[in-house]
């Protein structure tokens, strides 16, 4: 059974159809890149999978491990193993990152019927993961993303990914706002999480990111559909020729 099956998905936002019958199948262990120009519906797809309010699904379905994802609340989806790394992670003033991580992790565990982490166990786990990602302890005491640099925000996303151990990671424009060094650190963190039990969907404008996170499959989106799929070489092809060739295909 595929991990994620998007079948003929149609989505509207305020009366305007953004996705016109999109299909995508992702198996465990695979890394898929979704590329496409602005407005092609890449972010919409990631939001709909994660369950962001404001989108109306008018047709099609999304199955996650064979279960109907669209029937689940966003927090239930998270507990099932859907993780969205945000393009622009939000700031939550006054809430220490450590508190946030613990609250979220325990909420997920509780939803799955697992026991909550004890404080020492949790601290041990966070410190271990943070050290791997080169995240200083001091950062964990600050408010969630408050005053974080672009690179720190993205590393915080990767930290959460590592901590929550989701089976599906969707990375929405992870490269935006990052310089090349910050990008490398974040990408290394992501690569360390690649595993046969986990799939990743990497959404990006640019081929650049895919030099660091090398995909198994590349899909090109245009005007709300997947117009071409291929292997990693497709990304290079796009880099050379641009998206214009697909505008007509859509």
């Amino acid at each position: 059974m595929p991990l994620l099956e998007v079948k003929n998905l149609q989505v509207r936002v305020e009366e305007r159809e953004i996705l016109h019958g999109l299909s995508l199948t992702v198996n465990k262990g695979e890394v898929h890149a979704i590329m496409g120009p602005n407005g092609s519906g890449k972010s919409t797809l990631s939001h709909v999978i994660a369950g962001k309010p404001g989108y109306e699904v008018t047709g099609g379905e999304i199955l996650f491990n064979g279960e109907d994802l669209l029937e689940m609340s966003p927090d239930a989806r998270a507990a099932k193993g859907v993780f969205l790394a945000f393009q622009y992670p939000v700031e939550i003033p006054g809430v220490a990152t450590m508190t946030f991580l613990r609250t979220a992790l325990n909420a997920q565990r509780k939803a799955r019927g697992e026991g909550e982490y004890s404080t020492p166990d949790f601290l041990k786990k966070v410190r271990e993961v943070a050290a791997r990602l080169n995240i200083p302890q001091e950062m964990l005491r600050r408010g969630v993303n408050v005053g974080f640099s672009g690179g720190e925000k993205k590393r915080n996303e990767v930290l959460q990914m590592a901590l929550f151990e989701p089976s599906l990671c969707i990375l929405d424009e992870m490269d935006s706002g990052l310089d090349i060094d910050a990008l490398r650190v974040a990408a290394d963190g992501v690569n360390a999480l690649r595993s046969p039990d986990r799939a990743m969907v990497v959404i990006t404008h640019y081929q650049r990111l895919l030099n660091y996170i090398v995909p198994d499959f590349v899909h090109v989106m245009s005007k709300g559909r997947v117009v071409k799929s291929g292997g990693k070489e497709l990304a290079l092809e796009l880099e050379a020729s641009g998206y214009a060739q697909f505008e007509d295909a859509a």
Partner: protein
Amino acid sequence: MAAVQETVDRVRRIDVDQYRYGFETVIESDKAPKGLSEDTVRFISAKKNEPAWMLEWRLEAYRRWLTMTEPKWARVNYPKIDYQDLYYYSAPKPKKQISSLDEIDPEILKTYEKLGIPLREVEVLEGVVRPEGERRIAVDAVFDSVSVATTFQKELKQAGVIFMPISEAIREHPDLVKKYLGTVVPTSDNYFATLNSAVFSDGSFVYVPPGVRCPMELSTYFRINERNTGQFERTLIIADKGAYVSYLEGCTAPQRDENQLHAAVVELVTLDDAEIKYSTVQNWYPGNSEGVGGIYNFVTKRGDCRGNNSKISWTQVETGSAITWKYPSCILRGDNSRGEFYSIAISNGHQQVDSGTKMIHLGKNTTSRIISKGIAAGVSQNTYRGLVTAHRKATGARNFTACDSLLIGDKCGAHTVPYIEAKNSSALFEHEATTSKISEDVLFYCVQRGLSQEEAVGLVVNGFVKDVLQQLPMEFAVEAQKLISISLEGSVG
């Protein structure tokens, strides 16, 4: 109703004049008859075995109250209160004199537990002796207007601290009470304070002698039990020269159908170099989802920094009541005195909050700080109303005010009404205000990480109010944090 009728009959039989000078009473009924009259005032005074001067003080207030009208300037709406349709005094069932805490009704102890009062305080109530050296809290429990338990008296006595129900203080320390009662909130102050002066039932009295740091946090739990019983608490706290005391007040009330009037008065006095820290967590019944029921809370709280270099700090977490009308204030009379006001006011459902503070700078080089966090959800209205004023002789007065409002949903309202008056050109007043909506993006971020909508709101709001929560003593901060999440339940769809 037989009991009430009996009371009425009994009161009718009483020749009130016999109590004018007396300290004795034959009244054993536990409730004053409905309505307010001079007889009601005399009844309460007699129930409390009060000396004549106290009765006179009450009667004077009552007569003045008759000439006053209810204030209407606050941004709150409620049906007209029929002051003759309320009970002004009720006590728990008559009990013998309590010599030890073991004699307290287990049902009452159970109620404390249900209210989520920290285990440590329940232990205190149950008379559990904790090891030496641990920080302790003295609890003077107020159940329906009458203190039923006072703990740690011995240790406080050793320190010279007087902590007792004000009704006892009136009898045992008349000089202190006479010297300070009504000097911060005069009997003529405002409609509700005047009413309180006439009919106050009980409350706490604290006196910390010169140079003494009170050895423990003082804590009082108020609770409203009896249907239709107005609550008129009166609290007076005096920190003599160089003294320090931290006082914690927490309130809850069970669900009820009819609106209840609560008009408390709290007076604080600090002499030279003294400090009082007064913290409140208030979560009275706010009414049901249609806005029916709930407590009307008209409170006058004021502190007088009477001495030089003295300090008064108010911290409040207001989550309950249908109507909140409350402005804990500081009169900065002594030179170099300091006033602080830290507030979290949460309104949900149909609640209406009109709360804030007054910082009245009279002395030289006085400073004040106001941090107010208002959170409105449901169809509630949340108003911050504040006054910062500098007298013409208050050279070097300084104030910093930050008022932040957070809106949850699109049917509630947040309002900020700051009054600023500087009659001295050297005064430096700063005012910052923000109003924001709880962002959909922030909520989605949290739920994507596995938090439910309500957990997400609770988390974001607790972050928003963190600066104020930090001002609370530890035990209260934890309780308050839980309370904030509970009071916002159902605020998101």
